[in-house]
């Protein structure tokens, strides 16, 4: 009996759960530090609900890790259609927050279905790519159906309006087709098309505040007290951390409220302010380890579905991480993309738990059934 447990523990892949926990630990400490002085805004207890969400997400991850990936494969489309339905519900009756319709309230729960949509899309695409000509390089013709699968939720999310998440769905799609051997020629063509459509979109498709964000990105100091304020304060927070940071709980930008949204989108700026460049290198390495382990897993599995799925999951978190870090440090315009495990938010955490659970399950299958 003991032998079996020992065998099990030996073969169980703890790396994803471990990575998740490590990043969460840094995240929750940072969240506490960012919000501890904001009693009057009622933010100082956020870290507690974040911990509860982590507990739930970790449990979900562990539970999913015991599922057979084949079961997951079977439910791929169901998950996709289910999350799409939720997005549809949001459009019908969602709660408006920050000028956009993003939330779905069921009893005491507030959900952001667009978070789950990412997972649903990844599952559906993985399923599709493994069933239809899995060996073929992709050209335009092969992109039509997966393109539709992606564009339907993307458009629905964009009209919420949540441009960030909508674009994120497209980026996830992009990374998955890249993995699924999109022809280089097609990549070039697509690049040109997206450039042209980007310009068209800017001129005709964006709302005023979204356009403003791009302006602000190009020159935040043009409107330092208005739309450029966040970008500037974020850079100040990061830069003022210098090499070693100001120390735990010493972020003045957060505690004095110069940097708004410091518990969600801008947590990374606060982390930089308090722990400096070296702290950030440490954190970035934690993320890289997690992503590289995923990429390694994608090439080490026996089933192609598992491989594509792992790349998809990895791409969700990679894009989140990269876009958030880039926007906070002024490399990209500010769009509302949270930093996985660091930003406050239950839906995002839960999605991460699901992803980690699936990855662990896939990794375990490799060990247990070999």
């Amino acid at each position, binding site marked *: 009996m003991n032998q079996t447990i020992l065998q099990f523990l030996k073969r169980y892949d703890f790396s994803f759960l471990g990575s998740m926990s490590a990043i969460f630990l840094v995240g929750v400490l940072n969240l506490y530090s960012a919000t501890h002085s904001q009693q009057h805004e009622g933010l100082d207890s956020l870290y507690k609900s974040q911990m509860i969400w982590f507990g739930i997400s970790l449990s979900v991850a562990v539970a999913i890790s015991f599922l057979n990936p084949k079961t997951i494969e079977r439910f791929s489309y169901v998950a996709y259609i289910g999350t799409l339905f939720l997005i549809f519900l949001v459009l019908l009756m969602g709660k408006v927050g920050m000028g956009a319709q993003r939330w779905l309230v069921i009893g005491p729960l507030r959900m952001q279905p667009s978070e789950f949509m990412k997972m649903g899309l990844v599952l559906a695409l993985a399923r599709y790519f493994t069933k239809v000509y899995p060996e073929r390089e992709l050209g335009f013709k092969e992109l039509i159906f997966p393109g539709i699968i992606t564009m339907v939720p993307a458009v629905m999310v964009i009209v919420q309006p949540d441009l960030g998440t909508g674009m994120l769905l497209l980026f996830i799609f992009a990374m998955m087709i890249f*993995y699924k051997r999109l022809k280089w020629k097609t990549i070039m063509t697509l690049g040109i098309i997206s450039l042209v459509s980007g310009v068209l979109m800017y001129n005709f498709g964006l709302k005023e505040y979204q356009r403003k964000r791009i302006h602000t990105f190009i020159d935040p100091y043009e409107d330092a007290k208005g739309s450029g304020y966040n970008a500037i304060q974020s850079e*100040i927070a*990061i830069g003022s951390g210098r090499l070693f940071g100001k120390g735990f709980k*010493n972020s003045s*930008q957060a505690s004095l409220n110069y940097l708004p949204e410091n518990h969600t989108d801008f947590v990374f700026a606060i982390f930089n*302010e308090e722990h400096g460049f070296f702290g950030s290198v440490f954190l*970035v390495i934690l*993320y890289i380890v997690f992503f590289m382990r995923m990429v390694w897993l994608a*090439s080490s599995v026996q089933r192609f579905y598992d491989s594509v799925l792992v790349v998809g999951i990895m791409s969700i978190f990679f894009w989140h991480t990269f876009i958030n870090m880039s926007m906070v440090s002024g490399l990209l315009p500010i769009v509302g993309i949270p930093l996985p495990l660091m930003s406050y938010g239950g839906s995002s955490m839960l999605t991460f738990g699901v992803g980690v659970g699936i990855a662990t399950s896939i990794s375990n299958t490799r060990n247990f059934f070999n």
Partner: protein
Amino acid sequence: MFGEEELVKIHKDRATLISYIITAAFGLVLARLWYLQVYKGETLHNYSIQNRLRKEVVWAPRGLIYSRDDQLLVDNIPRFDAILTPQFLIDKEETLNKLSGILSLERASIDGVLKKNSNQAKYRPIIIKKNISFGELAQIESQNAELPGVSVDTFISREYRDKEVGAHLLGYISEISQIQLPKLRERDRLDYRLGDFIGQFGIEEQLDRYLRGENGHEFVEVDARGRRKRYINTDNLFKGIEDEKPLSGMNVKLTIDRDMQIAAYEALEGRVGGVIALDVESGQVLAMVSRPSFDPSQFSRGLSPDYWRSLVNNKEHPLRDRNIQEHFSPGSTFKAITGIAAFENGAIDERTEVNCGGSFRLGSRVYHCWKKEGHGATSLVKAIRESCNVYFQKAAFRMDIDEIAKYAKAFGMGARTGISLPREVSGLIPTKDWKRKRFGQEWQPGETLSCSIGQSYVLSSTIQLATAYAAIANGGKIFRPYVVKDVYDDQGELVKTFHPELLSKIEMKNPKTLQLVREGLFQVMNNPKGTAFARRGPGIMMAGKTGTSQVKTASADKVYQKCDLMDYESRHHGLFVGFAPYDNPKIATAVIIEHGCSGSGAAAPVAEKVVTQYMKKYQPEMYLENLEKDKLIKDNWVKTLKAEVPKAKPTATE
């Protein structure tokens, strides 16, 4: 068909490429972080400090002002203003409504204040209400969280203990206005800022550089809404940033006596005029009061427009100091100078007797003496005692105006005394040259006659008259009057002492000149025939001279009788100048009562009260001795009076 494992294998290249993409992406992020944190780290760190540090002015406590007997005259007290910073308003309506409730101000008036200041930068605080009460202060402080943008500004207000008493001397401080700013910066070469307080009048103005001190500054930590943080983070936020403590202003001790000031102020009750008292042997100003007056505290508390209007529109000009900023015809008080000039010049001597028949004819013009029937045979002493116009006119006729002017100027008239107070007037002693330059006309002998009795062109201020009479009393020493005795730093260390400044010593050719003039002045008050006999006070042994200063030109005797019946505006000014005690002069004083009609009726009583206060306080022994001497003098004049009665009037000879 490929097997599942082969499918995975053929995608391995892309997996590797993806791992490169990840590496490159995070490499980019780290490069950006390096750029921000290392390359621009210092700059951005400074930004973050500037973000949360606000440099606040710490006002230097202004120096205190004490009287010569160490009584506090001017003090500082804390004051609170409710201020609002528009930038930090969140819900403007709500905040303003709350504020209007707390401060019991109409919403409209708050809106008015905001509108008036709407053109300035949003981060600049606007004063909503000055001088809020402790209750209002407590409410604002306790509701701080619900009143974003509202705060309380604390600073020190200037408090003048005796309010209107001596306001012209002490002066006031007020904020530097937009108009003054460039001028003052130019004048003092100091980086004044709008809203800085500066002495604008009197001692406060003149000694501003001593009293002012130097404002310091401190850095306080504020949050994004500009609210001051109570708990400062433990990191080295304040490293390398130095607060600067304010340097307290220096304390000033005046030569002024507070009790004499109050006595003088009270003596001037209901009058328009001024009184000044000098220490005879040093030129120290013992008292200097002008009425109507104003409350200088009002200026440092932010003058209300109503109060300002009431000052400016007042026909009696309460802001003008009657002692140094106004000059008048000295009238008969000038006769002492004419007498000295004539005596020294040799135009008259102690044996000279002038017959006063009530008038003096020059050409077609008749110059009347105030006494219609005339004074008869008149000596210098009698002429002074009874203020005989004809005597001095005849004496002046034997000299000329330049000779009189020479002595008048020697006694400090016709020029600023140079007292260290702003905006002193110079007065005027006319000469032939002066008239030629001024009017392009030759001097008329008749003008000499008018000038000899202190009318016509002659103008003096009370400070000049007091200085001149002090010189008569002390044997010809002209001291520059001064009001500041010592300057101390805030630790009580003596920084500077002002010493008496002897401007000149007038050498008298005839040793009897001053003696006889003094005798005459003494008799003015201590001889039943003296013009101010009724105003001799007990224990002061005062010598002095009354005078009237014509406001409207008319021959003196005609209007004199009717003065009380004339319109107020046309009535003569009443003057009195004197010194005391006669046999050991300590104090000289000059009084002007505008439209007071007569020197003896209006001005002399004021002098008597001020001098009595001085004698009782500073020369109590002498005061008691004088009371005894008063009896002797009384016996003496009672005897003379009795002896004189049966005698026939002496025939007048010249």
